[in-house]
């Protein structure tokens, strides 16, 4: 599969209220050793032909991330067609 994965994260200096809300909820799960949680977005772009990293970078720059508040990283993902099988059990 010709997939490029883009991870978009708020810049470190930008407050992440969602992440803070998660941190604040963790004590209720009995978790006390987490200092920080940051929440971002994972975006999967499937190309019709070969994975076009340059085009994906252009999409990320212009649309997927706002450079004022966000950073992004992208990578071509290896074939993942058989990766879904065990996920359900692992999640438990």
């Amino acid at each position: 599969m010709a997939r490029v994965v883009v991870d978009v994260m708020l810049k470190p200096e930008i407050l992440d209220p969602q992440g803070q809300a998660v941190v604040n909820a963790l004590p209720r799960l009995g978790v006390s050793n987490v200092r920080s949680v940051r929440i971002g977005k994972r975006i999967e772009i499937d190309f019709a032909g070969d994975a076009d990293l340059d085009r994906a970078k252009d999409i990320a720059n212009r649309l997927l991330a706002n450079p004022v508040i966000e950073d992004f990283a992208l990578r071509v993902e290896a074939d993942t067609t058989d990766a879904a099988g065990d996920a359900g059990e692992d999640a438990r």
Partner: protein
Amino acid sequence: MTARIGVVTFPGSLDDQDAARAIGLGGATPVALWHANADLYGVDAVILPGGFSYGDYLRCGAIARFSAVMESVAKAAGDGLPVLGICNGFQTLCEAHLLPGALTRNQNLHFRNRAQWLRVESTSTVWTSGLTQGQEILIPLKSGEGCYVADASTLDALEAEGRVVARYTRDNPNGSQRDIAAVRNEAGNVVGIMPHPEHAVEALTGPSTDGLGFFTSVVAHLGAVV
């Protein structure tokens, strides 16, 4: 001849009708503009209204920025067309890089919906020329992603150039840096404001009529120009 002011309707816009009504009360003729139509029909000014354009998917205003009408608005704004972005419209102007900074999730995660006090900081814009510097106004705020952020050098430049148009006063509802509620571009024809002046134009429905000044200001400006 009365001035004609366009109001853009995006899929998910909510406040286009209120903006059109406020334009009428301010003494101009509202003109409906459509997101998928690049034609501005020769309007003398444009308002980008509040709402949730394109469902606020990805980021607020991120998709709206690439709509057909926004290409025309961006070009015309560069040529001096007065543009006011309210709430989602402010977010769209930031996404389109017509204004600096960005609007992010409210610091406390609360959707803020209330009448909010602002202090007018700049009357050097076509949208606030009829207001008074330092004047406190009460207009509705209703947003979940109204926290204004920019890097320190941008904020310093905005302050130094008098481009902070209004600040939250009495309290800061969303964590906006330096209490910023509204900013303008260098030329002063493009203004973005998070609270809603178009909801404060009639005593029956608003907490005040303080918002009317934004509309009468631009009408006075256009009258002087035309």
